[in-house]
């Protein structure tokens, strides 16, 4: 019932569609850089899909209930992120691989963190704004067809989602975002 109340069926369908889309686009797009880009954008779509579920139907009712929300919220974000990751990674085994699993994992983790931060600051419904804008800016700044910047470290961290899988600073940035997002959301909950 908790899952139903958080709109999980719709989210699950959306994520599933994303996974299928990833697989289909994997067959259609040959360009290597394009494949990484598609993988990133599909990860973005799938993670934003979990945003609406981060708030209950009635904010005041949730507050009033005697449930220990923080652990539950943390679990919610973590499970949602892992599910997205699992589904997207599964496509890699079904069809040709779009991007390294490590890269997908990093991007999903970071983007989930961003969604959680967005939910804590802007409210669950507006949460996708944060990862979408960030990704969009990065894609325009570091052109999708070109190579991402390799130095200095802060640029690598700012463009973490388009970095290759072995860029340490990018991984750090994604992990920091994931942890910060989970903690912020667990403590604060969704803004109404």
């Amino acid at each position: 019932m908790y899952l139903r109340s958080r709109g999980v069926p719709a989210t699950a369908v959306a994520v599933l569609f994303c996974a299928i889309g990833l697989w289909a686009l994997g067959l259609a797009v040959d360009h290597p850089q394009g494949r990484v880009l598609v993988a990133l954008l599909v990860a973005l779509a799938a993670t934003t899909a979990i945003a609406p579920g981060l708030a209950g139907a009635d904010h005041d009712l949730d507050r009033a209930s005697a449930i220990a929300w923080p652990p539950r919220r943390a679990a919610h974000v973590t499970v949602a992120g892992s599910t997205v990751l699992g589904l997207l990674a599964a496509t890699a085994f079904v069809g040709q691989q779009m991007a390294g699993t490590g890269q997908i994992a990093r991007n999903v983790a970071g983007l989930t963190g961003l969604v959680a931060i967005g939910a804590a600051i802007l409210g669950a419904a507006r949460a996708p704004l944060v990862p979408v804008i960030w990704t969009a800016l990065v894609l325009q700044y570091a052109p999708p067809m070109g190579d991402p910047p390799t130095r200095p470290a802060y640029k690598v961290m700012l463009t973490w989602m388009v970095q290759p899988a072995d860029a340490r600073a990018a991984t750090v940035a994604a992990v920091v975002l994931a942890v910060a997002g989970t903690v912020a959301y667990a403590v604060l909950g969704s803004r109404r």
Partner: protein
Amino acid sequence: MGARILRIELRRSVALWAALVIAATGVFVLFASNEPYGSWMQLVIVSRDIMQLTWPLGLAAGAWQALRERRSKVEELMATTPRPRWQRVLPVANAMAIAAVTAYLVMLAGAAGHVRHIDGYFPLGAIPLIALGALAMVGAVWLGQAVGALLPSPLTAPMLAVVGFVGLAVSPMIVAQDSRDRGAVLLFPYLQGPRDGGFALQMLSTRANLVQALWFAALAATGLAVFAASRPGTRLAALLPVVLGAAIAVPAMPRTLSDAWVEDRRATEAVCTDDEPTVCISRLHSYALDSMRGPAREALSVLARKLPPGPTRVLVGNDGTPGPQPADTLIVYVTLIESTEYTADTLVEIMLDGAGVPPCAGQVGIDPNEPATRELPPEPDPRYVGARQAVTAWLLDRRPPPATGAKEEPEMALARQAFDTLAALPLDEQRARVAAWRDAERACSDGDRLELLVGTGETG
């Protein structure tokens, strides 16, 4: 009544915020992703190109707006009002359209600070590009509202944004896989600049502009109609504009993208100073006219003193190939590299290069005025280049400096040698030899140029 509702909708709906977010994102990208723009046209084209980003954002903003009543849980209440749906939604659609246009214009105005020469040439061809960009943004929000009305889910807006990115960012890759440049890319809301990258001197042909206007208007009309329709039948009928638009736009489309870009003749026209000496420069670079005047005067006076009869006007060419040169005109090919500051001294030097005669084709290696080609140009002849440099040095009364590095270019040694030989001669003889050299250079005749300067048999 309508105006009051519109005002309220502008203030209370997501319109203002959407405009802010889109404009801010656009300005950031316009600033961050490029060097300062060399011309207005480049900024306008790039601002259309980044609609890969702003267009999906507009789509998402529209979808977000369309869900307002559901979010506030008054959807059913609103549906029971006797006022027809289209009357109810028209003000908010207008508010969103105003927001979209404002966002686009604010973005352009904000990015104007990133244009290198803000008083530079503003081509007329940029105006339809801007208008079409704004129209496409209106189409984006209305289509977004239509989709939001059809699929009222909190997931719709973010999904639309991402699907929009995927569609617009990945589609060029699929289109680009064709080696031909398809005209069909003009159907996309973003605009690809000319293939050869000559942003400043080109504009979109009238036909391409009209086709795009028709297509974008059809898209926007369909978006609005679907959003305002309340019954499935009317929604189906609302698809009519886009079908009609496609039926007209697709056959009328220019075959290729390069067909769609035409030369902007006004940009290459020469504008001249009123006073003496006459200095002319292409309109595109007219901002540089003031800085050219002093060096031009100096260069002309040097030529008149040392090599009469001297030319009387300076034509600063930047683009295009050297043509035949009238004797009274000093044609200077200054490649105004945007990021370089030219001092007056450098400009005089450039103007006096080879006594103001453009080098003959294929003699100096890479020609900066020619578009870069794949095959390497023929190796420059050191004797030819050396002679040119000797003449320039002679005009400037400045001995070519000896080598500072370990390795000296052969033409520099030749130039210094020729300069010394020339300087040792009587003045009349010097002048006669350089004049002979200039005649040969103007005619691009065959024969050794260095010999003309230093005399036969003396070069060794």
